[in-house]
């Protein structure tokens, strides 16, 4: 068990149900060695002529020994990575219903656009007069994000959602300090349903975190916020739609209370994809909100990034936005790289943000248009509610009496007498060919299962998914424990011993057996 009380290894380590082979391979499922076991220090897949004789200017700084970096020739390298790739589940292969992660279809048009030399082969520091197209992408995406959010300004440089949170909270801290209240406002309110990044971000810049409990209906009430507000509060960080997949009904009242108390309203925009074209955060009273381009605007998740996390800011925070930013001056676009007399809080990263991801997000937005964006939000919400309605007779939904937004939340009450856990259920989904939903998050719901289908699934795909989950749920309640506790048995791997990985960390390959 880890600190979340989540079981990390199977109760019963069942042997593989499949016949052993001499190679360990199973048909298309190939065991692949590490490059350190197959590569050679003198092998290379890159032909490069050695330079003509020259007089080295490295001086005493030259490296003496060889680096332990095995190489592979091109055919070996292709085979290595292709084989590895086949052990991964992907959106392209099936529904990827990770709640809060928004695994929607990734258009290949967007990849193609990002590879145009006028985007991919432009250096961040080449003369601005030669990079007007890149600046135009930043400007066009900013404008689109402002239209969708109804906010005053947008900081484009943050590199991912959590970096965007940091940006927004730094703007808030700068604003609080500018009012001379930096020493007194030291607390940030964070609901207990929040993403872990929220309290981590607040703590990173020296704030202490005061939790706000969510109500029995899964949302935060204005009353609970008012009770937590005091003259020491700098901001609230609230996710909307929240991590239970619910729209915060009292958000306007919360925003008013926060503002009246002299604090700022940071909205975690991880779930913005549910409401694009339906409501504007600026109209709801939000002061800062990051937008995960890899969620809402479908830039590929890439096995864990890169993301991009532009932050929309209200007029109260816009003056504190970080450098750099793009400014239109007549026909030309200018890049402001240094603080120009204003109150900018500084710089978040080198260069200008995730331009390559901006290109993809802009292509997504242009493709959808105002009509498609709205339809995407509606389809995402419709699909989540369809799942909720189709499963809630078998699986317990803690807030199932009302519609959800883009994700359907279940808990583990329905598993109570089965001896099975949420994890067992999730692992059994793998054997059925599905990536599991997000499990054990949000933390306020016991044994949470958070399902986000996105707008990318056809009805046939949703129906098959629902049928599978219903079959599994019936099997679970019928007492078929083995099917679940041994699962997965048909995946490239059975359950992993996570405890061993953490107790005896092996974080790199070495020639010797680790001690």
């Amino acid at each position, binding site marked *: 068990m880890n600190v979340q009380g989540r079981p990390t290894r199977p109760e019963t380590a069942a042997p593989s149900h499949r016949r052993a082979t001499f190679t360990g391979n199973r048909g298309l499922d190939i065991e692949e060695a590490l490059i350190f076991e197959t590569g050679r220090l003198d092998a290379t897949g890159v032909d490069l002529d050695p330079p003509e004789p020259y007089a080295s200017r490295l001086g005493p700084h030259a490296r003496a020994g060889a680096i332990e970096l095995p190489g592979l020739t091109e055919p070996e390298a292709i085979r290595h990575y292709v084989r590895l790739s086949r052990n991964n589940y992907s959106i392209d292969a099936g529904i990827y219903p990770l709640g809060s992660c928004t695994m929607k279809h990734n258009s290949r048009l967007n990849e193609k656009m990002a590879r145009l030399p006028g985007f991919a082969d432009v250096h961040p520091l*080449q003369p601005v007069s030669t990079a007007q197209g890149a600046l135009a992408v930043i400007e066009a995406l900013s404008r689109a994000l402002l239209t969708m959010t109804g906010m005053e300004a947008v900081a484009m440089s943050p590199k991912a959602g959590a970096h965007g949170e940091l940006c927004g909270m730094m703007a808030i801290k700068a604003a609080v300090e500018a009012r001379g209240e930096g020493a007194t406002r030291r607390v940030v309110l964070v609901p207990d349903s929040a993403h872990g990044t929220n309290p981590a971000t607040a703590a990173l810049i020296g704030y202490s975190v005061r939790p706000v409990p969510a109500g029995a209906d899964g949302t935060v009430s204005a009353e609970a916020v008012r009770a937590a507000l005091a003259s020491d509060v700098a901001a609230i960080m609230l996710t909307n739609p929240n991590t239970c997949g619910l729209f915060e009904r009292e958000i306007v009242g919360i925003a008013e209370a926060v503002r009246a108390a002299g604090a700022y309203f940071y909205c975690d925009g991880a779930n913005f994809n549910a409401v694009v074209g339906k409501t504007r955060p600026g109209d709801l009273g939000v002061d800062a909100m990051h937008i995960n381009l890899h969620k809402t605007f479908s830039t590929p998740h890439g096995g864990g990034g890169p993301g991009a996390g532009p932050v929309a800011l209200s007029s109260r925070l816009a003056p504190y936005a970080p450098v750099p930013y793009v400014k239109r001056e007549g026909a030309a676009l200018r890049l402001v790289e240094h603080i120009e007399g204003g109150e900018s809080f500084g710089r978040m990263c080198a260069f200008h943000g995730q331009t390559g991801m901006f290109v993809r997000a802009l292509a997504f937005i242009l*493709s959808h248009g105002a009509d498609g*964006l709205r339809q995407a939000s509606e389809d995402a919400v419709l699909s989540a509610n369809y799942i909720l309605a189709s499963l809630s007779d078998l699986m317990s939904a803690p807030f199932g009496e009302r519609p959800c937004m883009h994700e359907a939340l279940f808990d583990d009450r329905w598993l109570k007498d089965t001896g099975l856990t949420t994890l067992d259920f999730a692992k059994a989904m793998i054997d059925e060919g599905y990536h599991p939903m997000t499990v054990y998050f949000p933390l306020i719901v016991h044994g949470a299962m958070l399902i986000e289908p996105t707008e990318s699934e056809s009805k046939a795909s949703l129906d098959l998914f629902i049928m599978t989950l219903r079959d599994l749920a019936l099997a679970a309640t019928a007492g078929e424990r083995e099917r679940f506790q041994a699962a997965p048995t048909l995946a490239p791997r059975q359950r992993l011993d996570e405890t061993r990985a953490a107790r005896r960390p092996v974080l790199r390959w070495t020639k010797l057996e680790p001690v």
Partner: protein
Amino acid sequence: MRYLPLDASDREAMLARIGVPDISALFADIPADKRIEGLLDMPLAKSEMAVEREMAAIAGRSLAAGSVPFFLGAGAYRRHIPATVDHLIQRSEFLTSYTPYQPEIAQGTLQVLFEFQTQVAALTGMEVANASMYDGSTACGEAMLMAHRLTRRGRAVISGGLHPQYADVCATLARMAGDAIVRLPPDLTASEDIAAAIDGATSCVIVQSPDFFGNPRDLAPIAAAAHAHGALVIAVFTDPVALGALRSPGEMDADIAVGEGQGIGNALSFGGPYLGLFATRARNVRQMPGRLAGETVDAAGRRSFVLTLSTREQHIRRDKATSNICTNSGLCALAFSIHLTLLGAAGLRRLANVNHANAVRLAERLAAIPGVEVVNSHFFNEFTLRTPRPAAALIEALAERGVIGGLPVSRLLPGAGLDDCIVVASTETNSEDDRAAFARALADCLG
């Protein structure tokens, strides 16, 4: 809309199953006066062809680096990337998967990360590396915060040779976290006395090698001075290929090595997405930020990989986490790892040699132009020129002649008194013709 599989009859059937009359019932929780009636003020959906046309027109307004003699580095480097790299990273299973939360069906990503961590550790001469950060500058900032946790001190000394934007990132983070920094003045010739700035309150010294001006630095004496005061050394690099030719941070006794990994496997892309490399000593691992892949076994006893030591991380530790980082740069790390696997030790060494040789030849050519001086006594693939005319105007004039000649230092360090300095880089992509064109254009501009 080509991306949306549901049609009107699907939607109707789904609404019926849900038991609501129309879609607006599902959005009823949005306060009535805050709903958008109708559409956002934006153009309507476009076909793939129309989007392609529009985007290509925008792209056409930038100069592609590969279309001209190009000598700009300063933290991002134009490299020849084997076609294999881009092909492999576009495989569905890498491109459209996410953080490997379900390791049984994510061994591809996890093994790649384990191999990546091993490669980064070997390259930097350190013992452990994480699964990547956003970029070099944020990795540098995170390293500073990590040093603060390890030493329980809050004052970083920042070398004047650190990339100015990296230093700005550290300064912003430190100010916001309530910590102090001592930022030494820009140091063109690597002659600053860092040791003199270290005292018993110093948490860490942040030194770049090769530094922003191209000078390789010997970190060993700095490390000795820092360690004598209980402070740590953070070694920074902005081009990973440099480590193929120069002594590694680990060899010079650094405690944390961070850098920009873009220069292997990743395109320029106007500054991002890139990847931060982050490596340290094994004893520091529990204070390291970011994701880590580790080796274990599955229930059948087979070697397997899994994200581990997550009790450092925000999703478990919340406000006690070592960092707020969640998503990192997975796909960029994959590109880095594939390119480095294709290179291997021999290929990396050769690539580094070609970079260095090209830079040496370029320096010789440019130094021969009257009034132009190469400042560095030693360098790898980047050096600083002093010119008889203001550098910013000179770079513009070179651009008009179709040559991107480097970075005028004043762009990143305005008012530092270095208005006549240009940081020039050369990689394997530069030909003899490129160098000749640069020298000719520079002589012409100065003539």
